[in-house]
């Protein structure tokens, strides 16, 4: 039976590359890799990493920015949900923020850079009237040595992610009843939420929070666009070593990748410590019976934080789009003198190849991910057993293990197998990251499906696959297409897997855009970043309007 293959195949394709990749990283890190002339185990590569200048600073930046980004975005989301869930403003902001999830990190980072740089949009709007600046002030905002801008870039992107994850889990915690109960006991809205709803809610989103920590402590593209350069965060330096034409640098790079694994693990351990401390503090506050009724200022602050984050992303993206069609645009003019399609015309011939690769890889990896998810869910229907905690951990594995740690080894193995920089390799590398999002997005609506429809259809004498294709799949067309759009967006935005597995020969819009970062040509960056956000948006348009059009005469099929 075909469905029987679903779960094992999914496990193989998720865990296989991670395990093999980690092995391929560990061996050279310990000095063993015969093809590169390493025949004996030694700790020399680690010693070499630790001897690199500024390595302690790089580690500190990775840890600090990652933890700060996670803590601030989670705090904002927590207080926002606490103070506003169930209100009309909440629903409106939720609608506003949802599309941001699909915008690739790199595009968001570019948008932020174009917005807050000394020569950016904000400075232009207030200059020279308020500031008197005739030329950009000489301050380091983007690439600031402490990584503040990089942290901000991560925060504005992680807020939508954590908010949507929290919203998906919220109904299971009975927030309405808990809110009413806490209010009847005289608790303010925020305090009632933090004592009553947050603990069970946090338990449900904890893996997603770990994924944010892992991503933020090991991010490469955002760090290259916004992060410090002297020294750069650890992951960025790893990539530089990795790309060094001197192959013996591979030992150093692999040892560095393991150091990255340790840094991310340490960040998660620190986070778990923080969880303990805050839970003790929370309990002590609870035992005092403090009602915290005057929480209006905090609710206001949370609303402001989330709105500001959304505004920053939207304004940044608009600025990007404007730059891509800008003619002469002198500082400190707030708008270009004229608009032109010249940059687009000039870039299009160069864009075509990467655009094709992007669409091909995203489409193929998404199709495979959707098929595997459907098979696994069908198998779940058959056996009546859901994948338990183990399955959930497995799904989150690619999101919690830092990408560099296993992609290095995977690249090395693929090179040995002669399969690096091939389209199939790239598709399967993307699949590792696309699959979790597709499955997580599809599984809830799938499990919520009224299975009596299937019983009715079977009672009419229909075979299982007839029931699946004629009844269940059409009825779930919208969630399936939405999951596909999510997968497509994830693939379009993937930077590191594409750079490493594509090995510079398979370029996508995202790798090209990040590569342009150092050049600083805002018009061309605008073109690439604009395409980066348009592609996922197209996917979601299809997912929303496709079913709406096909089922336009079927009232019950409207969402």
């Amino acid at each position, binding site marked *: 039976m075909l469905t029987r293959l679903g779960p094992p195949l999914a496990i193989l394709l998720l865990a296989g590359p991670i395990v093999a990749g980690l092995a391929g990283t560990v061996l050279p890190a310990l000095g063993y890799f015969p093809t590169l002339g390493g025949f004996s185990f030694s700790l020399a590569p680690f010693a070499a990493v630790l001897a690199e200048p500024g390595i302690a600073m790089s580690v500190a930046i990775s840890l600090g920015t990652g933890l700060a980004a996670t803590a601030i975005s989670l705090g904002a989301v927590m207080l926002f949900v606490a103070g506003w869930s169930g209100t009309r403003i909440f629903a409106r902001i939720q609608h506003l923020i949802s599309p941001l999830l699909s915008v690739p990190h790199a595009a968001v980072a570019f948008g932020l850079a174009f917005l807050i740089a000394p020569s950016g949009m904000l400075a232009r709007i207030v200059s020279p009237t308020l500031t008197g600046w005739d030329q950009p002030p000489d301050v380091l905002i983007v690439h600031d040595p402490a990584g503040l801008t990089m942290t901000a870039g991560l925060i504005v992107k992680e807020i939508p992610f954590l908010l949507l994850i929290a919203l998906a889990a919220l109904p299971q915690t009975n927030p309405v009843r808990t809110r009413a109960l806490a209010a009847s006991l005289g608790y303010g809205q925020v305090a009632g939420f933090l004592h009553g709803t947050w603990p069970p809610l946090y338990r449900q989103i904890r893996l997603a929070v770990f994924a944010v920590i892992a991503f933020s402590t090991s991010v490469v593209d955002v760090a290259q666009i916004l992060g410090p350069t002297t020294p750069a965060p650890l992951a960025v330096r790893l990539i530089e070593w990795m790309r060094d034409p001197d192959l013996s640098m591979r030992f150093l790079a692999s040892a560095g990748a393991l150091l990255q694994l340790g840094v991310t693990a340490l960040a998660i351990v620190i986070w778990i410590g923080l969880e303990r401390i805050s839970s003790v503090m929370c309990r002590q506050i609870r035992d005092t019976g403090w009602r915290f009724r005057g929480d209006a200022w905090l609710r206001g602050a949370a609303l402001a934080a989330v709105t500001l984050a959304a505004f920053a992303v939207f304004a940044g993206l608009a600025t990007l789009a404007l730059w891509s069609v800008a003619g002469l645009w002198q500082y400190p003019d707030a708008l270009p003198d004229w608009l032109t399609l010249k940059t687009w015309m000039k870039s299009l011939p160069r864009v075509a190849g990467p655009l094709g690769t992007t669409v091909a890889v995203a489409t193929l990896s998404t199709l495979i991910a959707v098929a595997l998810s459907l098979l696994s869910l069908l198998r779940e229907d058959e*056996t*009546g*057993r859901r994948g338990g905690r183990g399955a959930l951990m497995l799904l989150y594995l690619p999101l919690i293990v830092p990408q560099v740690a296993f992609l290095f080894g995977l690249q090395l193995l693929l090179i040995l197998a002669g399969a690096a920089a091939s389209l199939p390799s790239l598709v399967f590398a993307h699949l590792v990251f696309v699959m979790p999002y597709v499955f997580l997005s599809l599984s809830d609506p799938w499990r919520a499906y*009224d*299975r*009596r*429809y*299937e*019983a*009715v*259809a*079977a*009672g*009419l*004498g*229909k*075979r*299982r696959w007839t*029931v699946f294709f*004629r*009844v269940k799949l*059409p*009825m779930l*067309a919208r969630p399936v297409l939405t999951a596909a759009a999510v997968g497509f967006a994830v693939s379009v935005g993937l930077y590191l897997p594409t750079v490493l597995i594509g090995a510079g020969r398979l370029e996508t819009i995202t790798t090209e855009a990040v590569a342009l970062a150092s050049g600083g040509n805002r018009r061309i960056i605008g073109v690439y970043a604009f395409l980066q956000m348009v592609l996922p948006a197209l996917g979601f348009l299809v997912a929303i309007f496709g079913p709406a059009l096909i*089922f336009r*005469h*079927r*009232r*019950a*099929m409207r969402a």
Partner: protein
Amino acid sequence: MTEQGLHLDHVSIALKGKTLLSVDRRVGPGEVFTVMGPSGSGKSTLLAFIGGFLDPAFSASGKVFIDGDELTGLAAQDRHAGILFQDPLLFPHMSVSANLAFAIPASVKGRSARAALVEKALEDVGLAGSGARDPDTLSGGEKARVALARSLLSGPRMLLLDEPFSKLDAGLREQARQLVFDKARAMHLPVVLVTHDEADAEAAGGAILRIDDC
């Protein structure tokens, strides 16, 4: 012809070792066997067991025969059990006639022959000419009648009714009962009805099994 009808041969259904119901009974063609019990008593699992879609969480023993053929080992689609639930469960992505056409066995060939069957079925439940409509625009009573017509079109060998009248208005409920039981009698179908409504049981007029909540 003693074998005619539905035979529940020492059927027993349990959840985690606790027996929910045990039944050993024959239901003749056109007869109604009513199972009564409060909600949560597991009475619907009997229908799921007969129909072949019992959740794997339950364990069941015993056999089911229809007209002498054993059903117990068969897949749901090979049992030809027409099922009506509390909700009409018309497929929301199909028109009314597509819902009905979906039920006609593939052995009926030819577009026009199938269309004629659909039209006839609509007439039989007083909905002639409604084929092109969106099922969601029908009234509750109309939906219930389409659901019945759909079941009957598939050539069922029995009817399994899971509180099919409980969501209808009192007036409609009486009509719907009449329609379902008349059709079942006319087509000589054995019926198993699960309900918590005494009036349903009375109208059915057949044997009654009461499940206590223990």
